[in-house]
């Protein structure tokens, strides 16, 4: 545990002494702000139109009309940002030669894998904290549901952590950061498209296959959280995804010894 903290601490420190963390943080804040304003504008417009139909106005609120869209856009931003954050996490150790230092130190492979994941998870938590600030602003001017607002943030956090676990694995299987970036992006985009793929061709006609594909999709477990539904089945999904990718990452790191 002490070692996990040491590895995580170094990882975070390296992130913050280089421009990477600041670049990602400012880019993320900018994009989040942009989407927030766009979604806000859209919300206002719809609200204005709905004023002629009081029946529909009753069903329209900040959570479903604004935060739902906003959180959705954030999940897409995460999909493109996280590969950039995680690409170097193991690949850089190999090019620095520090892989040899880590593997000849009195650390277990789990210390390394968990430490690096924890660092990524903390960084993502900071990003989601920024999203929380935007959502929090709404409480000053309106009254969104606290539960729904929070469960959406939880969904974003878990989605981000899943992406970090996947990105870490991609970085562990290659020496090149660019390759790690591309592998992560391809896997994440594929995960995003899975529900669509599940409807297609052979996959669509075989219920077992399409159900499995659908189950693997991040989106279908993120959506309930977005709608305020915290289901253990969805939480289990995220835990299983993160856990499995950490296990294969551990195997990939260990394989350096056998080459």
């Amino acid at each position, binding site marked *: 545990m002490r070692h996990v903290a040491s590895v995580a601490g170094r990882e975070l*420190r*390296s992130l913050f002494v*280089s421009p990477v963390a600041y670049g990602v943080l400012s880019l993320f804040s900018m994009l989040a702000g942009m989407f927030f304003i766009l979604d806000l504008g859209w919300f206002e417009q719809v609200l204005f139109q709905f004023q002629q139909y009081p029946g529909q106005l009753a069903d329209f609120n900040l959570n479903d009309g604004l935060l739902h869209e906003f959180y959705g856009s954030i999940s897409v931003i995460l999909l493109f940002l996280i590969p950039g954050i995680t690409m170097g996490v193991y690949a850089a150790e190999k090019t620095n*030669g520090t892989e040899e*230092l880590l593997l000849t130190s009195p650390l277990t492979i789990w210390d390394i894998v968990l430490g690096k994941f924890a660092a990524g998870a903390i960084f993502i938590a900071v990003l989601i904290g920024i999203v929380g600030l935007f959502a929090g602003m709404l409480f000053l001017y309106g009254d969104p549901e606290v539960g729904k607002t929070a469960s959406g943030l939880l969904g974003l956090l878990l989605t981000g952590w899943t992406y970090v676990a996947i990105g870490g694995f991609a970085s562990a299987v290659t020496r090149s950061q660019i390759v790690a970036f591309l592998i992560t992006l391809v896997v994440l985009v594929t995960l995003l498209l899975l529900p669509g793929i599940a409807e297609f061709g052979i996959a669509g006609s075989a219920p077992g296959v399409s159900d499995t594909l659908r189950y693997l999709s991040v989106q279908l477990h993120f959506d309930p959280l977005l709608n305020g539904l915290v289901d253990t089945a969805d939480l289990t999904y995220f835990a299983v995804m993160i856990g499995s990718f950490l296990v294969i990452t551990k195997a990939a790191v260990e394989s350096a010894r056998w080459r």
Partner: protein
Amino acid sequence: MIEARGLTKRYGDLVAVEEVSFSLARGEVVGFLGPNGAGKTTTIRMLTGFLPPTDGTAVIAGHDIFGDPIAARRAIGYLPETPPLYPEMTVRSFLEYVARIKDVPRVERRAAVDRALERTALTDVRRQVIGTLSRGFRQRVGLAQAIVHNPPVLILDEPTAGLDPLQIREIRALITELTAPSQGDTQQTVILSTHILAEVDAICRRVILLHQGRKVVDAPLSELTSGGRSLDQIFTDHTTHDAADKFAFPSGPVVESESGSES
């Protein structure tokens, strides 16, 4: 302190290291000699626990590298061929990190880092980012990370490779100083891998010569050079002998099979 028992590393049919055994007592300083590709680095990587041997094992400071790998690794200070450095960290924060992962107790960490900085003459650049340092300085940081936890075993893999003559002299002086037991230090057992003979002459008291993955010489330096022969001659004798054979019979097995078909 270090005991290698039949260390063997095979990659498929290729044998990188075969049946290398030796035993080093506390405080011994040994030169690991051999031409490039002789298996020095592979042997070292097996001792440090980076590569698992295909066969055989090693005992470091009483801990088997298979039985208790964590304790064995804790006892080793290791400078790999390319010094393992994070270019974005400062010298001091890097050494602090290494001290942490090498299990230096929290209360002793500060002092341990200060001492390593002092012994490698890095105190003046301790706040500098490693990426901005010259090669000679980086090599010193590499040495500092190897000694920061004051390990009983020190393994240095070609510590002067790629340095200019001035830097080589510096690093060599540093190693001599490090290997000379000073007050209050645990006497370190040192393996110094190199293909530069002068280095061995200057620093080591015992020589292990590897050639084509096998140990061909293992003797005290004084004994080897007692007959008036230079280390250079010994090295050449043991490492070119086989090569000469090879040139004489470039395809040994084929010659055999031809004679077989004739009879």
